[in-house]
């Protein structure tokens, strides 16, 4: 034992083993930490940054899309304004009675004689035949007005010109029947079916 204890080579051997063991242990700990903690965390961070990049790209696309939608909404607002201008001289549904009274006044101004029963109809405001309104393909409505009257051709032409050139209404004639009246002298019987173009509910256009 004493020999072993006093043997310098034995001390060095144990020491080198100890140093080697310390090197192994000391090197293994940081390496193990590096591979078990740091590397997976780096991978997770890279994956998360990739996800962030994707989200940013998606957001950029969404911002562009929102810009398009905003442009669409601006276009719609502009079109609404234009449509209101174009339909300014169409008759509002609430103004039907006003239109009828205007036509009646024109008739009076041009010596158009409405048969008694027609005058009653006009006064009763049922020349607008309920349920007979016609529609255009995109929703514009036209409401019929039927006028039976007696007048000279000249007077009737002037009456018709005034009706067709009204500033605050658009009236389109569907049919016109003129028949000579043997007992009426110069006057003839006229039956006009015309349609009053009505303003549409612009707020509801393209919403349903």
């Amino acid at each position, binding site marked *: 034992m004493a020999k072993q204890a006093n043997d310098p080579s034995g001390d060095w051997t144990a020491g080198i083993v100890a140093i080697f063991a310390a090197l192994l242990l*000391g090197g293994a700990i940081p390496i193990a*930490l590096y591979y078990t903690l740091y590397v997976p965390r780096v991978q*997770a961070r890279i994956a998360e940054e990739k996800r962030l990049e994707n989200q940013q790209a998606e957001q950029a696309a969404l911002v562009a899309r929102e810009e398009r939608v905003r442009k*669409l909404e601006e276009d719609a607002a502009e079109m609404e304004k234009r449509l209101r201008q174009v339909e300014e001289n169409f008759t509002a549904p609430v103004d039907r009675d006003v239109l009828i009274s205007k036509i009646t006044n024109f008739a009076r101004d041009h010596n158009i004689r409405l048969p008694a029963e027609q005058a009653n109809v006009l006064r009763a405001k049922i020349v607008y035949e309920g349920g007979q309104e016609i529609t255009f393909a995109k929703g514009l409505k036209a409401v019929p007005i039927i006028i039976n009257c007696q007048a000279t051709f000249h007077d009737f032409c002037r009456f018709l010109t005034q009706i067709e050139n009204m500033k605050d209404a658009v009236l389109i004639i569907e049919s016109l029947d003129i028949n000579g009246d043997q007992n009426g002298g110069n006057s003839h019987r006229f039956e006009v079916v015309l349609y009053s173009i009505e303003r549409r509910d612009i707020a509801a256009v393209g*919403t349903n």
Partner: protein
Amino acid sequence: MFELNLIKDKAKARQRRRVIFLSVVCILFLSGLTAIFVGSLYWNETTKLNKAKGLADELAKKNEAMNNDLAIREPKSLKRRNGLIEAWRESMAVHKDRKFFSPGLKEIMERRPAGQFWYRSINITVVRQGGPGETLKGEDLLGPRGLLGGGYVQIEGGAETLTQRELDARSGQMTHLTSLVGQPKFTLNMDRQDTANRQSRPGEDENKQFVDFTISAAMRVFTGGGGSQP
């Protein structure tokens, strides 16, 4: 001597052990430092990861909200804009394509032959796109009209050809009526069945005869009612 050597050996052994101990301590110290360095890197990555994750989550939430909002707004605004454009086109067409009757009627009144001439009846009506009997559509009001009328014209000395030529000339002058109903065509009813229509007014020259005529336009197809069918 022996004792002295023994003392020297012990001192050397202690020194060796000290060297070995210090080496091991140094190695472990360096290892610890390295481990701390790795730990700090890990901590740094963790901070970056959490930051990126937080941003990505926040952005994802924002994008989802934006996407949901746009999924409603986009089709709605597109439909609204397109609907308004179509409505505007339709309303413009009403202004642009509407037919005026009064200029055509004035022409009927003014373009008359030299002799006596009057209309018995005039009918101008819409040509329905779906054909006669079909329900009237709004677009029909902007389309062409058809014309059918009739009357009497005075013919002197049986000069039907001259009268026909004169009526044709008048028809050619009716430009507004033509744009409304197409080129109007006057037809003198001189055939055998219509000779009964020839009239002369009492007290007038027997040579002056009044002949029935019809006026029609090609855009209108008349069905039934004894009308013409061009």
